[in-house]
């Protein structure tokens, strides 16, 4: 009788053990466009170059800088916005 009572009490006690139901929230994947690397800057390989050609290389390099800067700004905006959305779920 005592053994049965002990068994019953044990079952009753362990019935309080919890079973967890996790809800997983993943941080979003970055878009492929943002994963593109910045292009290396152009150099001048010819020893004698006319002024306009020199200026074109400089201009191309500035264009590359602006493209890369645009990408970095987009990365920052992407992270800020996504973090805001991610954090709102756990508020």
């Amino acid at each position: 009788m005592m053994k049965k009572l002990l068994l019953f009490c044990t079952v009753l006690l362990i019935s309080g053990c919890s079973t967890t139901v996790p809800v997983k929230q993943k941080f979003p994947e970055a878009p492929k466009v943002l994963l593109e690397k910045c292009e290396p800057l152009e150099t001048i390989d010819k020893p004698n170059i006319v002024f306009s050609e020199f200026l074109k290389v400089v201009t191309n390099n500035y264009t590359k800088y602006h493209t890369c800067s645009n990408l970095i700004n987009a990365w920052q905006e992407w992270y800020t916005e996504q973090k805001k959305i991610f954090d709102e779920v756990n508020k």
Partner: protein
Amino acid sequence: MWIINWLPEFIVHLIFITGIVGTIAGFVLGFIPFISKYKLPIQIISILLLTLGVYLEGGIAEKNKWELRVKEMEVKVAEAQAKSAVVNTEIVEKVVTQTRTIKVQGEKIVQYIDREVKVYDNTCRVPDVAIQAHNMAAKNIAPQEGK
């Protein structure tokens, strides 16, 4: 509580109701001959059943509360995923448009150089040191000592 997941809900309600009925029978209806004969066992079993019933009912209430919270959380996560996808699309569109604009502007500047600066090619010579300085800047290499 794992036992709540395993045990059908109606059994828990049945245990609880049996406990209540038994307790009433054991303590109030003692004057009925059949009940008065088994009064003590009915009282003991009923109290045990009532205790177990209250315990399990509490477990069910807690489980329902958590399930509700899980559902709320799932809705929130789904909403966040939708918002995140919208933000992704907006940023990608913005980057693509701006990159295209930057390239177009660059091409226009090159055309401007061809049109306006080319005429100075014969009069304006680019010294080798200027080219070297440019290349060093492009590669981010500092000039060597003495140069």
